[in-house]
């Protein structure tokens, strides 16, 4: 299926060339809007209803911020998506596809098809802050940082235990140091504001890293 990419600049999903961006055509049945100004591009998109699907790159915001919501029955051919990545690390191979209750199944199938044809994997989720992964891992990362402060074990022992015990490729402390504690602060603070759940409260070490970043 042919797709067109409208790049508004500053895409977090595709900061560099990828098979997906290389596979775009001039006038496709699917419109993919990436970058930091997707709302404005959506507003000016011609023949929006005539597209098989319109895909908006999301940051931490919900798809409903662009499409509107009504009585739990919202949904159209417009979907959200984000390629998952942790902070300063390389983006992963995963696309989280965001749907609404009445999203067109045809549009969803078209979205899956074009991403998977480019070698990416897709996971479909509802339109909730943090989608799947951030909602699951941020409380875990906060807990790991807190337990480090409480000297449950050394950073190396915490990481080793979680790698050997669960087969994780990297322990939480090394991962957060590699990808940026300040970035973790930004994401988990946003989730705390969205849900008010104390599990998302940024851990002390993340707050300190953010303070250090602000002072730099």
């Amino acid at each position, binding site marked *: 299926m042919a797709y067109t990419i409208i790049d508004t600049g500053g895409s977090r999903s595709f900061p560099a060339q990828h098979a997906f961006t290389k596979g775009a055509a001039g006038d496709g049945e699917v419109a993919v809007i990436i970058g930091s100004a997707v709302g404005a591009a959506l507003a000016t998109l011609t023949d929006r209803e005539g597209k098989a699907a319109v895909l908006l790159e999301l940051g931490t915001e919900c798809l409903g911020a662009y499409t509107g919501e009504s009585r739990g029955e919202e949904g159209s051919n417009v979907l959200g998506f984000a390629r998952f990545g942790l902070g300063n690390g390389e983006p992963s191979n995963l696309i*989280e596809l965001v749907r609404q209750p009445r999203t067109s199944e045809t549009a969803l199938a078209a979205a899956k098809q074009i991403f998977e044809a480019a070698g990416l994997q897709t*996971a479909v989720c509802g339109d909730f802050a943090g989608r*799947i992964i951030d909602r699951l891992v941020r409380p*875990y990362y906060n807990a790991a940082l807190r337990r480090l402060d409480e000297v449950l074990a050394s950073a190396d*022992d915490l990481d080793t*235990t*979680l790698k050997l*015990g669960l087969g994780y490729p990297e322990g939480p402390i090394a991962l957060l140091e590699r990808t940026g504690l300040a970035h973790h602060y930004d994401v988990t603070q946003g989730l705390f504001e969205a849900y008010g759940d104390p599990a998302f409260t940024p851990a002390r070490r993340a707050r300190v890293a953010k303070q250090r970043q602000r002072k730099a």
Partner: protein
Amino acid sequence: MTTEIKTVGVAGSGTMGAGIAIVAARAGFKTIVYDTRQEALERARAQTAGFFAKSVERKKLTPAQVEKIMGDLTGTTRISDMAGCDIVIEAVFENLKIKHDLLGELNQVCQQHTLFASNTSTLSITEIAAGSGRDERFVGMHFCLPAQLMKLVEMSPGIRTSDEAFQRAWDFCKALGQTPVRTRDNPGFILNYFLVPFNNDAIRLVEAGVAEPADIDRAIKAGLGYPLGPLELLDMVGLDTHLLVAEALYASTRDPRAACPPLVKRMIAAGRLGRKTGQGFFRYSGNAMFGG
């Protein structure tokens, strides 16, 4: 690594007990598995034979080696048969009274030098040891699931555990070919302290209709490189086991994320316990032991 331990007892022939027995027998120890239920022993032995058959297929072991291992691995329903063990590792339900009753009986049967160890994942080692009659020779040895494949063992001394007993258990763990990591006697130690709330959060995403189980697992595996998704892992652990572990952890920590989501109780009531009943968050066609 040398150890004076020659004979290993494993109390309980469920998923963890059977896996620990495989580890011990495969490492060359004479291994006796005790369970009050003959049918549980027979089921575990059949699964163990299937596991070693796969080991032969994958050329990890020869048929002669498997014959020797299976010969060194016996099961019993008579607790008196545990008298000759140098260490007994209990892997029964996560219930303090059940463990105290079992350990009290073992204490009457076993010799003075015999070490007792608990594979508990959530209960306090010190509290379990207090009902064993030999709290100075009691250690926490938490094997990871599936025990027959995972190298890590979280080892925790209780408050009254002697340094000598802990060192003997540590040396034995290394002689098993495992990788011990010392942890404090805290609820959930390291692994379950993080894993149980994480898995509960994944169940809550299903409950809240955020995503389907397959999408959640795919996201975690593709996005983070984890070998298993949380719901696939829960099916392997068994939702009845997860409920016990989560309730024990919640009772110790009062952490709301440790509290088991209501969906788990509904699935248990419906007989969807995971792999062992053929359906949990996913459907399964067999109940073979993991790996080989």
